[in-house]
């Protein structure tokens, strides 16, 4: 059923989330909060070198230390075939993931796990790590993406040959893959253009920087049954990876989802769980592991840093006739950067007849990248949205109007294939243009910028259930870890279908053995896909409740209708009966067919893409180069906001992460290829005093493929901020910055460079 134009009572309201009280009182159990009788502590020994051959590992001294219960290295893991994994978000390979959990014959980055111990106390485990003797042959390393692409670069993998080029290369390379997208004839398009804009842009690797470090507790029973308690973006994902990496049957693994303290894509793969299981198997004890913040930075995936070239060609009237982008993305130590979506998203928002995009997926001696909120898109859009701003300026056009003129609409064919349908980009641009912020006066020295973002959003496999308690209260069951309020949205959709208040529904997330498979929490898919499953489960329950009422009244089921949580006779012909509410029907369940409940597993299709337009006002301190955000408005097509507060929260949080990416955040390496800023003091994420209130404006263009019209909302908001701020800085100072982050030293240097020129003019 579709409820988009129904009179909704619950969806669209702002109830308190079902898991709220336990989270404000400190009682929610996160990854590191689990305890178990007999539990011991696991710790990881990591490579001090950026690139080194592991000649030998002697663990004998560590094993003899009193209190040490187990030591493992890659030799304790089975050999894994080179096989693409479609378990997590973004490209991964089972063999690579195994070698990322514990290095095989080479350490490929500083921080790469080499061995692990489990001991009675954390202190003994630390002492044992010191006693492991690893004999390294240190190799030349390479950090930056273009250096890694050079002919004379140290090669990370002797068996890596560039895919996507003809003829097939005979020499190994750090370029894992070349991807190309073409539409029309870009060369001809540029010849036809009146104006050309070109630019070279770079971004630095940035980390998701979830506040909760990775943590787990694993217990390998002597009978081969495995329990995993961990925080992740998908306990089914954790189960699948552990099964594959350790050769354990899926049915023998039970993964219990603990609360997840932020992920943003970074918890869509495993680091600790397989190691903890291997340690537990050896020790015969439950093993708890948790990363330090330093380990999170050095050894878990940030997203790619990149180098890009962008070229736009347009007619004098502003219509873009040709576009080209070359993107080189860091993948980290193993192939698999988000180069694919990067290549697609930059131009996805525009109707351009001739497009040419080439992308390179490049390995170097850095931690393997992981998904980060709209993986790949913020990077490519940083370049495109800045170039578009330059184009508007050159043509004397309003930056919103040039986007409206070229903006994708229903029927626009993208350069990567699909044709846009049911999108709300133009509506979002219109809302930006009509927003008071866009017209508000600025003081001298201040600047305003806008930029846009596009993300596909995904659906996929999901399971959810709806069970009526004996007293008529409702349990909604979701197969996906709740990373930012999805218990609330799922419970609300169930409540809406059943016609009961949101407070009457409790949403829970059971372990992998207690509900059908669900793909991970990522791709902005949970409220869309798992919400769709939950809606259908509730609809089945309603059908069943109508059948039961019909049975009690001895009338045909067609003569029963369900509204406001009660069964009514449908019209006077059906007979005169007192309505039966959920509690009454639940009480009679035993006599009408037994327990009332349904579970639905589906593969949701039709996730509507999302578009965002952000407006930023900045002021630049010419003395220090510091950029202050004065006002920030984020407008987004959200389909239908199920719980508006949590939709706004996604938009505000994504914008703040983008502000950090724009102004502060970066991986800094020293001359030995080691990360220099692996803590929150030096890797500076935005704090409360860095940002203003972020006004989230929700534009509702319903997605017809979802029962309530929902679209994914979590990823779009991280895409526009970098260019919105870059464009605002340009408006304030006349200086176009090309390199992220636009940190004070860089801004100051750029201002100094143009100051003499400006003075001369």
């Amino acid at each position, binding site marked *: 059923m579709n409820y988009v134009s129904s009179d909704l009572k619950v969806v669209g309201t702002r109830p308190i989330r079902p898991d709220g009280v336990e989270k404000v009182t400190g*009682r929610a159990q996160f990854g590191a909060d689990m305890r178990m009788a007999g539990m011991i502590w696991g710790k990881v020994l990591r490579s001090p070198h950026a690139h080194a051959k592991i000649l030998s590992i002697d663990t004998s001294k560590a094993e003899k230390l009193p209190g040490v219960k187990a030591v493992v290295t890659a030799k304790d893991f089975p050999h894994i075939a080179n096989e693409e994994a479609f378990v997590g978000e973004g490209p991964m390979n089972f063999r690579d993931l195994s070698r990322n959990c514990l290095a095989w014959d080479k350490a490929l980055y500083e921080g790469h796990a080499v061995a692990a111990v489990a001991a009675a106390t954390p202190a003994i485990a630390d002492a044992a790590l010191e006693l492991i003797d690893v004999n390294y042959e240190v190799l030349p390393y390479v950090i930056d993406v273009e250096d890694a692409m050079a002919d004379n670069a140290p090669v990370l993998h002797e068996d890596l040959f560039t895919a996507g080029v003809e003829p097939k290369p005979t020499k190994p390379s750090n370029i894992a893959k070349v991807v190309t997208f073409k539409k029309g004839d870009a060369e001809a398009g540029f010849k036809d253009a009146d104006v050309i804009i070109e630019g070279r842009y770079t971004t630095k690797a940035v980390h998701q920087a979830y506040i909760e470090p990775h943590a787990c507790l694993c217990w390998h029973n002597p009978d081969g049954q495995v329990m995993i308690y961990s925080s992740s973006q998908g306990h089914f994902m954790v189960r699948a990876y552990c099964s594959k990496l350790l050769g354990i049957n899926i049915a023998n693994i039970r993964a219990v989802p603990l609360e997840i*303290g932020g992920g943003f894509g970074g918890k869509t793969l495993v680091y600790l769980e397989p190691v903890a299981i291997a340690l537990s198997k050896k020790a015969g004890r439950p093993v708890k592991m948790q990363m330090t913040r330093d380990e999170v930075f050095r050894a878990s995936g940030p997203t790619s840093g990149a180098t890009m070239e962008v070229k736009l060609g347009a007619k004098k009237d502003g219509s873009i006739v040709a576009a080209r982008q070359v993107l080189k993305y860091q993948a980290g130590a193993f192939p698999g950067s988000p180069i694919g979506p990067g290549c697609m998203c930059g131009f996805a928002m525009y109707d351009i007849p001739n497009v040419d995009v080439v992308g390179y997926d490049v390995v170097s001696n850095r931690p393997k990248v992981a998904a980060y909120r709209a993986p790949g898109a913020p990077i490519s859009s940083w370049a495109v949205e800045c170039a578009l701003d330059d184009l508007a300026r050159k043509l004397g056009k309003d930056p919103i109007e040039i986007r409206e003129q070229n903006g994708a609409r229903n029927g626009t064919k993208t350069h990567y294939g699909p044709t846009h349908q049911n999108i709300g980009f133009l509506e979002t641009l219109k809302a930006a243009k009509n927003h008071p912020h866009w017209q508000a006066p600025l003081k001298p020295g201040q600047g305003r910028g806008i930029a846009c973002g596009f993300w596909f959003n995904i659906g996929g496999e999901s399971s959810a259930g709806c069970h009526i308690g004996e007293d008529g209260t409702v349990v909604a069951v979701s197969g996906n870890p709740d990373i930012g309020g999805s218990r609330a949205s799922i419970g609300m959709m169930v409540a809406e279908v059943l016609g009961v208040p949101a407070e009457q529904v409790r949403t829970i997330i059971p372990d992998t053995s207690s509900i059908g498979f669900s793909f991970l929490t990522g791709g902005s898919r949970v409220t869309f896909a798992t919400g769709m499953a939950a809606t259908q489960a509730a609809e089945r329950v309603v059908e069943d409740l109508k059948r039961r009422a019909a049975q009690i009244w001895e009338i045909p089921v067609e003569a029963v209708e369900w509204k406001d949580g009660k069964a009514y006779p449908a019209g006077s012909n059906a007979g005169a009966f007192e309505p039966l509410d959920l509690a009454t029907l639940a009480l009679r369940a035993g006599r009408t067919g037994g327990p009332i409940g349904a579970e639905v597993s589906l593969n949701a299709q039709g996730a509507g893409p999302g578009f965002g337009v952000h407006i930023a006002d900045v002021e630049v301190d010419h003395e220090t180069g510091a950029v202050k955000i004065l006002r920030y408005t984020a407008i987004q097509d959200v389909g239908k906001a199920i719980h508006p507060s949590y939709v706004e929260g996604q938009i505000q949080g994504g914008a703040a992460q983008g502000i950090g990416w724009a102004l502060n955040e970066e991986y800094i390496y020293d001359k030995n290829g080691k990360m220099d800023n692996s803590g929150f003091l030096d890797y500076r994420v935005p704090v409360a*005093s860095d940002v203003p209130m972020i006004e989230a404006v929700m534009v509702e263009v319903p997605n017809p493929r979802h029962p309530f019209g929902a679209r994914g909302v979590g990823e779009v908001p991280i895409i526009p901020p970098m260019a919105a701020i870059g464009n605002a800085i340009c408006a304030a100072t006349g200086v176009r910055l090309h390199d992220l982050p636009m940190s004070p030293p860089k801004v100051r240097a750029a201002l100094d460079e143009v100051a003499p020129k400006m003075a001369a003019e």
Partner: protein
Amino acid sequence: MAKHHVSAVINGEPTEFLCETQQTMLDVLRDEIGLTGSKEGCASGDCGACSIIVDGRLVCSCLMLGCEADGTTITTIEGVAQGDHLHPVQQKFLEHAALQCGFCTPGLIVASKALLDENPNPTEEEARYWLAGNLCRCTGYDKVIRAVMDAAAVMRGEKVA
């Protein structure tokens, strides 16, 4: 070396524990006493997820040794609500949806309570600077600041809870 015997009043309860010299108060709370509401996000005093109030002063418990707790009165997130009765800051965090993942929430609530204990009428800017030691990666701080300002109004009696 023998462990230290420490006595403190934690969340109103006289409490005794044994700890190693090098154990932080955060480790003691989480591993010895079982109060896991205080979180470890960095163990270096940068993220504020382990915030507690010691003798009226806001402290990162990861930067305090367990031994230093001797003779002190401590409030952790578990002691902010009075039984079933949530503190106004907790209630406003719920109403404003000022949490997403909820991991930084205990620290933010303890820090906000400490702010309002000291300054019942903060400006938005004062609240932002006070809370600048508490990292939140989910919310962008907008709803957090609104919740704190709203809780302050309730506590001043300007607004019904």
